[in-house]
């Protein structure tokens, strides 16, 4: 039964937009799927103790390079997205390689990457003549509205399916990493770098691999977000706040389980949306307050995240029953 569960759930998710076509919930679902993919790509490296706060920067590069290539280069996103992803991967390698080479780990790695996302945010804001600065930026609309070449679709169902495929690919990569030798190497590294190196693990290369993979996925999420929303601003796709948003959501959902980041995205985005609608204009800002308090409570009382705690609970009950 449990073997077929992922396939049944997948089929249900694919069929959903053909049965239920209400635009607003569909929009929320698409946003959740795109962010889930971004959070999954963070947790690919975050679960090995490589806490990066630079993912806001990678996402910003992904989104802005795609939009700039389309507006100024008049090249299709089919060219722009690979360019954006390559730029982000290069940026990640440029910063991460010296970090790993000089053995900057733990808090120090988090801070170096924090500075990196600060740099990306400030560069986007500073080059406001080209990127629109903090006012945001819009890729030009294609005349026909929908076009595969321009990667712009006016139909939400199409976007839903695209986001679903990308999200599923993210989960697939997560699971592939989970089952690979890379995982064992990285777990050894996160326990003790010297011991790992002594057993023949190439510490720098393995860490660099996972970082570049993670940055690549994050940039793709940024590009997807840009193409879907058709509006990006430095605060929504880049910077320290986005990096922190990723960390919070993954911690709430569960960092060591493949569906954890997804659940984290569902909970944080639904919570923010419900609070926003519930409070409305009567109390602007209250939604953020409730959101913040809930995040603190989650982190203190469920350090393994919701999915992680649930799995612990079921495992414990299985032990006691057998």
């Amino acid at each position, binding site marked *: 039964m449990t073997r077929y569960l992922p396939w049944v759930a997948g089929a249900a998710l694919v069929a959903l937009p053909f049965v239920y076509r209400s635009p607003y919930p569909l929009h929320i679902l698409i946003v959740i799927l795109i962010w889930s993919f971004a959070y999954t790509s963070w947790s690919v490296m975050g679960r090995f103790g490589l806490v990066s706060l630079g993912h806001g920067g990678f996402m910003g590069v992904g989104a802005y390079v795609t939009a700039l290539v389309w507006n100024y280069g008049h090249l299709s996103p089919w060219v722009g997205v690979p360019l954006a992803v390559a730029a982000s991967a290069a940026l990640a390698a440029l*910063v991460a390689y*010296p*970090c790993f080479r*000089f*053995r*900057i780990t733990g*808090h*120090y790695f988090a*801070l*170096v990457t*924090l*500075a*990196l996302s*600060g*740099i990306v945010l*400030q*560069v986007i*804001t*500073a080059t406001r003549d080209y990127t629109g600065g903090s006012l945001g930026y819009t890729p030009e609309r294609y005349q026909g509205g929908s076009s595969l070449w321009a990667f712009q679709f006016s139909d939400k169902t199409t976007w839903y399916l695209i986001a679903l495929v990308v999200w599923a690919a993210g989960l697939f990569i997560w699971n592939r990493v989970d089952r690979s030798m890379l995982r064992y190497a990285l777990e050894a590294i996160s326990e003790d770098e010297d011991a790992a190196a002594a057993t023949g693990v190439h510490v720098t290369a393995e860490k660099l691999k996972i970082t570049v993979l993670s940055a690549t996925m994050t940039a793709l999420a940024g590009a997807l977000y840009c193409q879907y929303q058709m509006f990006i601003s430095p605060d929504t796709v880049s910077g*320290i*706040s986005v990096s922190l948003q990723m960390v919070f959501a993954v911690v709430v959902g569960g960092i060591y389980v493949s569906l954890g980041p997804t659940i984290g995205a569902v909970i944080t985005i639904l919570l923010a949306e419900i609070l926003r609608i519930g409070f409305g204009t009567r109390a602007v*800002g209250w939604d953020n307050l409730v959101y913040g308090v809930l995040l603190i409570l989650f982190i203190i009382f469920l350090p393994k995240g919701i999915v992680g705690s649930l799995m612990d609970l079921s495992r414990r009950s299985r032990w006691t029953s057998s």
Partner: protein
Amino acid sequence: MPLMGVDTRRIYLITSGLGGALAGLAACLLVLQYDVHPFVGLTFGPITFLICVLGSLGNFGGGFVAAFVFAEIISVGGLYLDLEWGYVFAFAFFIVMMFVRPEGLMARRS
């Protein structure tokens, strides 16, 4: 530590309280220079952290020197180019310094 008769919980409470109080005092002084808005803390938080690490954690003089260097880079960069470029240079300086001297500017040799 608890074995040596140190009440860890009490020490943590006092240090956290003191840290918050001093940050509040710093904010009172910053208000003289900056305008206040709900996101004002967010703009200082990360930079404060970076400066502390740059000047070696737990080193008072180091923190002072690092804050001075950081502020000068931001201001001088902002004087010749936009203010944002000042921040870019400061962050880049931090990253390079972490590669060159991960223990911070004023680390004591142990």
